[in-house]
């Protein structure tokens, strides 16, 4: 689960990670009030206004309505901060990570201006090959880490956390001194990484990136930016973090799918797919593409789907106006073909079936499933295998 920068910073601050002074605001007036507080505390009129969306590249991104305006602005004074917030809130920001449609800004983060001496990178991520969590640090702050990894991999230092003992400070010391930090700054960076690692472990992060981590002119260490993703599988342990989900950042059909326990991802094509199992669902998309079509979605109805979940899935697919045909591809294991058939029949009676439907059923209770579909008199085309199904749905939608 993705969260906003201001949320990540509030969490990290509570673990003792050094964060610039500031706070979030949803209106111009709120922004001005936050800025006034920051100015009173720091004695400096310089404040930064940062658009809050679930995507990177905000500084270089541009507002659709205001093409000269980027998503991160430095202003002087509280009144200017309030005005800047008003220009951003409610507008659509387009960055290289949002796609051309961009994302609407709901809030801004107001922070003190920082006198930056040096920009570093610190990140934490699962090293999948080792099955352990790694802390990464680099002198190349402010640049995307993937770019550094491609261009100068030797500039990324790594420390692997012992899975049984957990974080221990020598790991951060190795990284801090490895980056060439000295004196109090090295100590502050070590403490910073320690606090970050504790937050990662205690709250089940799946990713943390501090890019840049800045060293100020005074030698302080601060998280100028912060990106944190949470492990959705660990939500049950952190019920309070569930409130950080920003549903306005998510596709409505994907949210509807989640509500029904379905794994649904919206895509750009015209052939709706209903499949059981993630691997089979991905391959169904692949085979549709190979047959000359474009999938409209990824949908895994799961192993133990009940008829009402199948019906919900069918409704989500048919509600998409770009869907010109549907391909149901089921290899029943735990999922029974008769359950699937009942769900499809119920949903198509309720919402109607206005596009071609190709069904490929195999596996548990396949004869019963086929009979239920046949008896319902649905206008569908049966496929003998997945290649046959893909071919037929592509033909019917062209």
């Amino acid at each position, binding site marked *: 689960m993705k969260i906003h920068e201001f949320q990540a910073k509030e969490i990290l601050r509570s673990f003792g990670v050094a964060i610039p002074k500031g706070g979030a605001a949803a209106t111009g007036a709120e922004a001005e009030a936050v800025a006034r507080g920051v100015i009173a505390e720091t004695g400096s009129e310089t404040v930064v206004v940062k658009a809050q969306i679930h995507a990177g590249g905000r500084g270089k991104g541009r507002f659709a309505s205001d093409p000269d305006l980027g998503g991160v602005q430095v202003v002087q004074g509280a009144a200017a901060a309030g005005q800047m917030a008003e220009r951003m809130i409610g507008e659509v920001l387009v960055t290289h990570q949002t796609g051309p449609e961009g994302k609407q800004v709901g809030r801004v983060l107001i922070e003190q201006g920082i006198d930056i001496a040096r920009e570093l990178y610190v990140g934490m991520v699962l090293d999948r090959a080792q099955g352990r*969590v790694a802390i990464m640090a680099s002198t190349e702050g402010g640049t995307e880490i993937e770019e550094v990894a491609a261009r100068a991999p030797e500039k990324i230092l790594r420390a692997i956390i012992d899975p049984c003992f957990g974080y221990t400070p020598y790991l951060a010391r190795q990284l801090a001194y490895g980056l060439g930090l000295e004196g109090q700054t090295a100590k502050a960076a070590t403490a910073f990484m320690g606090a970050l690692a504790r937050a990662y472990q205690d709250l089940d992060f799946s990713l943390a990136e501090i890019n840049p981590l800045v060293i100020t002119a005074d030698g302080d260490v601060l998280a100028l930016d912060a990106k944190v993703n949470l492990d959705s599988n660990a939500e049950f342990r952190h019920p309070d973090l569930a409130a950080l989900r920003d549903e306005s950042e998510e596709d409505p059909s994907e949210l509807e799918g989640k509500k029904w326990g379905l794994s649904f991802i919206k895509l750009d094509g015209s052939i709706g797919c209903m499949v059981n*199992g993630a691997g089979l669902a*991905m391959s169904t998309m692949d085979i549709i593409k190979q047959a000359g079509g474009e999938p409209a979605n990824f949908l895994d109805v799961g192993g133990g789907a009940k008829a009402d979940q199948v019906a919900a899935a069918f409704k989500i697919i048919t509600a998409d106006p770009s869907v010109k045909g549907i391909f149901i591809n089921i290899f029943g294991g735990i999922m029974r073909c008769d359950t699937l058939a009942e769900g499809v029949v119920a949903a198509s009676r309720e919402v109607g079936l206005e596009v071609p439907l190709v069904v490929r059923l195999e596996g548990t209770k396949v004869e019963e499933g086929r009979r239920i579909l046949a008896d319902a008199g649905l206008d569908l085309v049966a496929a003998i295998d997945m290649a046959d199904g893909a071919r037929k749905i592509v033909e019917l939608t062209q």
Partner: protein
Amino acid sequence: MSIWCDENTRLLVQNITGRTGRFHTAAMIADGTKIVAGSAPGKAGQQVEGVPVWNTVAEAVAETDANASIIFVPAPGGADALLEAAHAGVELIVVITEGVPTLDMVRSLPVARDLGARVIGPNCPGIVSPGKCKIGIMPYYIHQPGTVGVISRSGTLTYEAVDQLTKLGLGQSTCLGIGGDPVIGSPFVDVLTAFEDDPDTSAVLMIGEIGGSAEEAAAAFVADEMTKPVAAFIAGQTAPPGKRMGHAGAIIAGGKGTAADKIAALREAGIVVAESPADMGTAMKQAIDQGK
């Protein structure tokens, strides 16, 4: 022979009294698996499908000499169940549970390994050696005893592959789903090693998907260490980057883990890669015909 489970496997079912546990206990018994015990806290003395139930895994193992376990415990208790089985001395632990927190697996897997347990999963369909033993949730009837080993990160896509093999007359020695999570007990290389060493496996079909670099590691292993023919398929050629495709581990992150990269690495290693999921069986046949 076969790998990791056979007619000598004595299976224990953890959370045997749950809905899923009961259903698959009945199915596994019908498919010929020797289930000797079940565990479920507070349910000692009960029976499920004639299988005696104990409160703890330790008691069940002490009483029945169970040497393998299958876990149907819900995700919050997944790692706990794994550690309970490993500490009780169970040699093969199959974690079917989907949704176990990643850090729970990071922490529990090294402990289970140190205790000598072989772990399959989590978030997997299990393992089957046709004609001998099934520890999992796969539809058994699609299998046929034979000499092809099947490894996959997926569930239903494995059934699809097995079905294609059986229809081509290619039976299987052992088929296993290693799981769709980013951290799993038995990555491809471990399973390939076991298949290479198994005299009754003559060829291997490997089914990967986007995310991570396990397929690339497998490709290097096949090139350097394997004498048996290998065919492969990679799911997710059309998957968009940055989106988790159902499986927690199936995500293209930072441009890494694409199907194209994996397919290139596999081909480089001399592996026959099926373009279409409809051709997994024929790719295996082609690899067998051309030999390693």
